[in-house]
């Protein structure tokens, strides 16, 4: 009898064109290649230099999200994109997709959005698929039981030309989560707590599988938030076994299999969860019931504490001291009640409808504190449309927040949405690296409800105090 296999092993094995040997890596077949404007131009150029075509254009989908503006006037109103080089990148993606026959959900397309939001939303992200994109947060798609990981631009060219990648088989890490999350504690807090414990390199060389009844109880959008930040623990991919939550999410999505084809797909998807007795290279256990709302205080996502906690002592670690100096924080000080300048709700981590609903629930009937700039940036145009159908945009606008077109926005400072030097931003995004949201910007990562509550008070606020 074949040895029991994990979810990862099943997906990996099903995509081996040839297995790895001592001399050569495995040739791994890629089912879905997502493309965006920032990491693809040099890949298309490489194809052009070598006289190569795109092998399977029907397995690729392009959109634009990273360097695109979120101001309506620049997206739909005929105003030019403010950053010239970004405008060139957008035009180049349009030209490349036209030349190589790749479908593009372009600037004004109703289905455009952050690449990791639209894949699941369209039903393109499916259990058992291999999915890559020139973006480290491709780990997001693993929430549906896909093996999904970020690649560099040279690898983007490899997939375009051959639909394959050369890969060494990674090790497996089971993150087992048990117990019930407390009220006011979200999937974002859960993954921040996991990263805090594993460390930002704890998952290096591994694919994480999140397991246990806490994970099973998460809805699909919460699972996407968890898998999204796998890379912040150093793991290229994070996966969750598909179940009824997954199947219900995918049913009738426009690019998921329909009707009898869906039933047929279900038969295959139900076989994907790991076999009883399957072994992982490492296992780590978490108790969800002890997790508090979490917030970062430093310059990487592993520098994270419960919101009621205080900044740790650094014990003479120079890098730690430098991080705190950058953040303008001192060891021992409480993070709660610290004044903030900017609040950002958005990104591939937390810009789906449920994130916007939970933030709006906090803001309804309230107003952001004087002097606070608050941006709410939906993860896709479809999320924007649904949020507007529910009137969420009115809640944000009446509270004094800005309501934008979809895109990566303030998650990374390359599209005009920036946090000023020295300013504190409480952000629902995924990285608090130095300068990530703008040169000198100081980022505090947290959940949408923590961000919204902090906007109301103008200070870091435990969301449970505002319910």
């Amino acid at each position: 009898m074949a040895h029991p296999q994990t979810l990862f092993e099943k997906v990996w094995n099903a995509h081996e064109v040839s297995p790895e040997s001592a001399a050569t890596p495995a040739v791994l077949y890629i089912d879905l290649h997502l493309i965006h404007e920032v990491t693809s131009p040099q890949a298309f150029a490489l194809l052009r230099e070598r006289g190569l075509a795109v092998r399977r254009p029907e397995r690729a989908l392009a959109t634009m999200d990273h360097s695109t503006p979120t101001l309506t006037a620049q997206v739909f109103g005929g105003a030019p994109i403010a950053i010239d080089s970004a405008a060139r990148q957008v035009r180049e993606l349009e030209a490349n997709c036209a030349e190589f026959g790749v479908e593009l959900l372009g600037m004004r397309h109703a289905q455009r959005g952050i690449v990791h939001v639209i894949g699941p939303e369209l039903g393109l992200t499916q259990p058992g698929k291999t999915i890559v994109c020139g973006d480290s947060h491709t780990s997001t798609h693993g929430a549906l039981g896909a093996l999904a990981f970020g690649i560099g631009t040279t690898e983007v060219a490899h997939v375009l030309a051959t639909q394959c990648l050369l890969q060494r088989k990674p090790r497996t890490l089971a993150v087992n989560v048990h117990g019930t999350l407390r009220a006011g504690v979200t999937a974002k807090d859960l993954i921040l707590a996991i990263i805090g414990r594993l460390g930002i390199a704890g998952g290096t060389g591994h694919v994480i599988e999140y397991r246990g009844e806490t994970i099973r109880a998460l809805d699909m959008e919460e699972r996407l938030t968890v898998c999204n930040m796998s890379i912040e623990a150093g793991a290229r991919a994070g996966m969750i076994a598909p179940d009824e939550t997954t199947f219900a999410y995918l049913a009738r999505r426009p690019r998921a299999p329909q009707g009898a084809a869906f039933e047929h797909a279900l038969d295959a998807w139900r076989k994907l969860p790991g076999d009883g007795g399957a072994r992982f290279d490492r296992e780590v256990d978490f108790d969800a019931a002890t997790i508090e709302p979490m917030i970062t205080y430093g310059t990487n996502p592993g520098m994270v504490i419960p919101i009621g906690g205080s900044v740790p002592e650094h014990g003479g670690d120079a890098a730690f001291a430098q991080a705190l100096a950058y953040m303008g924080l001192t060891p021992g000080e409480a993070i709660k009640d610290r004044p903030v300048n900017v609040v950002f709700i958005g990104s591939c981590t937390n810009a789906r409808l449920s994130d916007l609903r939970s933030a709006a629930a906090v803001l309804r009937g309230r107003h952001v504190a004087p002097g606070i700039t608050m941006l709410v940036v939906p993860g896709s145009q479809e999320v924007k449309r649904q949020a507007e159908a529910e009137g969420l945009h009115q809640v944000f606008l009446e509270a004094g927040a800005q309501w934008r077109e979809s895109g990566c926005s303030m998650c990374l400072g390359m599209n005009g949405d920036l946090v000023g030097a020295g300013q504190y931003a409480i952000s629902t995004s995924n990285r608090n690296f130095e300068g990530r949201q703008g040169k000198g910007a100081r980022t505090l990562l947290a959940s949408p409800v923590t961000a919204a509550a902090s906007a109301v008070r103008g200070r870091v606020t435990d969301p449970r105090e505002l319910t």
Partner: protein
Amino acid sequence: MEPFTTLRSRTVVLPAANIDTDQIIPARFLTTTTRTGLGKNLFADWRYDASGMPRADFALNRAGTQGCSILVTGRNFGCGSSREHAPWALLDFGVRAVVSTQIADIFRSNALKNGLLPVVVDEATSAWLIGNPGADITLDVAAGTLTLPSGAAVEFPLEAFARHCLLHGVDELGYLLSRAEAISAFENHR
């Protein structure tokens, strides 16, 4: 790619751990559509002051580091974003190898595809290198060794296929294209 057999150079040291790719090349420089010219923006926010002048206290700006093509750093170099602009910027600046106790997965993969050698060494070797900036060391790809000024050689791991590609200056794309028949067979039998 040029074949990469051995490299002898003095080191330049950035002792910080967890240097992420946003530090190596900040996102605002990613709106380029070419691979070239990124070296001037390498470590831009650490290298230049608010007026755009080089900061004298930053290692890569110090006199005597010109021509140093081996960068020694703290653990977990290259974490974060998958941007291949990070190895492009390092190479454009003149760095041809990075030495650390741990190198992030995607950065390592991207580095190898561009002939930038990722060298992972033990804690003691790393600590010595960090404590002795400017050390004259030699990297030997075929042997997989880093030779210290004392003459002591330390082994570093290098996957066989990556070693082959570096030594012969070949890239992976050629190998993948040569597997077209196997790829077609896979597609036809799914």
